[in-house]
């Protein structure tokens, strides 16, 4: 089973390196290799997740290793689904390093399959946790789009065309990427919070108990709600939208990790 994880990690690393090489030399064959590697990685990774689900008897999203691995998988699947509909030049160069970094975090986390405490044994676990993590996947894509936007914008604004001007797509395309990823990520995030709240009602008898994770996910939700609201009313588009996508993602990461390690609470993983 672990071999699947290692295969996926190896394929991600290979894809990352190939994309970086393609970024440097513009050789299309290298890009084809990189794309193939991402798809292979996605297959191994999905197989790993399913295998772990079968052997553990529950959705593999209850330890740090599982959650981060699932997070990486959702970035990959989000990326592939996006690529399927749109083309954004050199997007892979910015996304694959994030996935690889997440996979490395998962690699060094405890791999053991944890026993599920009775409170978590519910159909709501896969629904709530996977939707919440999928949301993070799309927010991560919006984050990379934001970085790309700022890099490209800087060169156009400063009139110094360096590494990025020819290699990155137009500002318009990057802004569309940002909008698309938020338009998918935000509803998922909302659903994640609602499903968690319904589950909390069933498990603990109350919809909301101001557990640190709940508080922080609400803060993150408000940040993204503000981004979207401002985008459509006050013109927080383009540059500011890119900056906000980066800030919002930082908040989402803190909700995912910072809360567990610094603040604790009922969402701390069993393992």
């Amino acid at each position, binding site marked *: 089973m672990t071999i699947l994880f290692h295969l996926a990690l190896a394929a991600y690393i290979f894809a990352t390196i190939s994309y970086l090489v393609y970024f440097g030399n513009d050789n299309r064959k290298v890009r084809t290799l990189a794309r193939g590697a991402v798809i292979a990685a996605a297959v191994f990774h999905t197989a790993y997740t399913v295998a772990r689900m079968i052997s553990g008897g529950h959705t593999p999203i209850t330890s740090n290793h599982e959650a981060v691995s699932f997070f990486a998988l959702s970035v990959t699947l989000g990326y592939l689904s996006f690529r399927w509909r749109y083309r954004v030049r050199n997007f892979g160069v910015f996304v694959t390093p994030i996935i690889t970094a997440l996979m490395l975090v998962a690699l060094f986390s405890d791999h053991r399959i944890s026993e599920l405490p009775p409170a978590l044994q519910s159909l709501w676990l896969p629904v709530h946790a996977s939707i919440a993590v999928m949301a993070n996947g799309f927010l991560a894509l919006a984050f990379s789009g934001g970085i790309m936007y700022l890099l*490209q914008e800087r060169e156009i604004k400063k009139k110094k*065309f360096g590494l990025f001007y020819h290699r990155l797509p*137009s*500002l318009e395309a990057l802004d569309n990427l940002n909008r698309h990823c938020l338009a998918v990520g935000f509803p998922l995030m909302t659903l994640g919070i609602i499903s968690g709240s319904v589950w909390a009602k069933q498990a603990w008898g109350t919809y909301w108990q101001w557990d640190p994770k709940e508080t922080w996910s609400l803060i993150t939700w408000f940040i993204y709600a503000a981004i979207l609201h401002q985008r459509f009313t*006050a*013109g927080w*588009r383009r540059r500011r939208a890119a900056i906000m996508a980066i800030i919002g993602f930082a908040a989402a990461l803190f909700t995912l990790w910072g809360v567990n390690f610094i603040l604790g609470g009922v969402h701390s993983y069993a393992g």
Partner: protein
Amino acid sequence: MQADRIHLIGLNHKTAPVEIREKMALSGDQALPYRELKELGCEECCILSTCNRVEITFVARDADKTAPAVRKFLFGGSDLSQEEYEKYSYLHRGRDAVTHMFRVASSLDSMIVGEPQILGQLKQAFKTAVEHGATGPILNRFLHKAFSVAKRVRTETNIGGSAVSISYAAVELAKKIFGDLAGKRVMLLGAGEMAELAAEHLITQGIAEVVVVNRTVERAMNLARRFKGRAAGLDELTDRLAEADILISSTGAPGLVLEADQVRPIMRQRMNSPLFLIDIAVPRDLDPAINDIDNVYLYDIDDLQHVVDMNKSERDREAKRGEAIVREESLKFTSWLDAMEIGPTIAALRAKADEICRAELGRSLKKLSGLSDKERKSLEKMTSAIAAKMLHDPIMFLKNETDPGLRTEKLAVIRRVFAIDPPNEGGRCERNDQ
């Protein structure tokens, strides 16, 4: 050697000033010069005449006599001396001529390296030559090869990739900001010539509307009519700017026409949808501080010139890669051409036949066990006799031709029928590559 029969005499923007070049242009009825060139001893020829170059490519046996005559013909309409002929023009022969033609076709020899028009002009020149029956087997292959080399240079290098004129650079930048330019609105502030040129480039990109704002509304209306756009007076500037995406400014005003403080409220009104401002006026029309506003991109004439310079150095790098392709291809083409002689062709035919005999014989001998040495020998003899008899007629077909032009033609046919050259080598006619 066949390749050494190819010659190229011409002059271009590097060797001759425009006063000389403009006297050369072989325009008008093309039948006359072709007839004359034939009389001068050109078995095949092709005239390329553009505003930057006049070149005659020809195939001749007795080049020592033909070349000076062609050079004289080239300068026929002018009153220059012999020394001046030689000073302004060049004569290339053999592989040099091949390399030169490939460089011309690939736009490596152009005034603006990488500008693609020359290939079309060369194709047109070739077509005209064909229509006048001036080309033959060598030039047909040579020029088709030149077209495919040009194509290869274009696809394998980024030579035509970046804009090297100010108005193209502006279009390229606009695309980096807006992606697709379809549906975007352009505003011209002032009715200068440069602004017109830039607007024309933008219109070919499918922009939706042109608004012309000018101090005198009358001139604005004239220009607006040209672009099927609208005209407005200077007092409407900020209102119209709120609706535009791209502004090209080129007024003759002595001071700034648009200040940063005027643009800020416009951006709020536009909900931060980006604005691309191009200031090609000297002195500048637009406040440089405008560039500090979020989502506004201001480029003045120096900025654009800087972009052009950067793109030019990029082109120079790509041109070096193009030169390498041209060198490789001209070497391949000349060696192919040199093989287009009777001797090498017959040798190649026999070698091919021998190889087939050996292979087939080997296969059969494996199945036929228990043959005596004598039987073996006579089998070998038989196969090579069959091969030799089969080849006899094609070889005689080649040898009996005394006309050199027709002989080249026949050589080409035989080489193709027997597949002596690897496919796509030596400029096999690619008639569809328009």
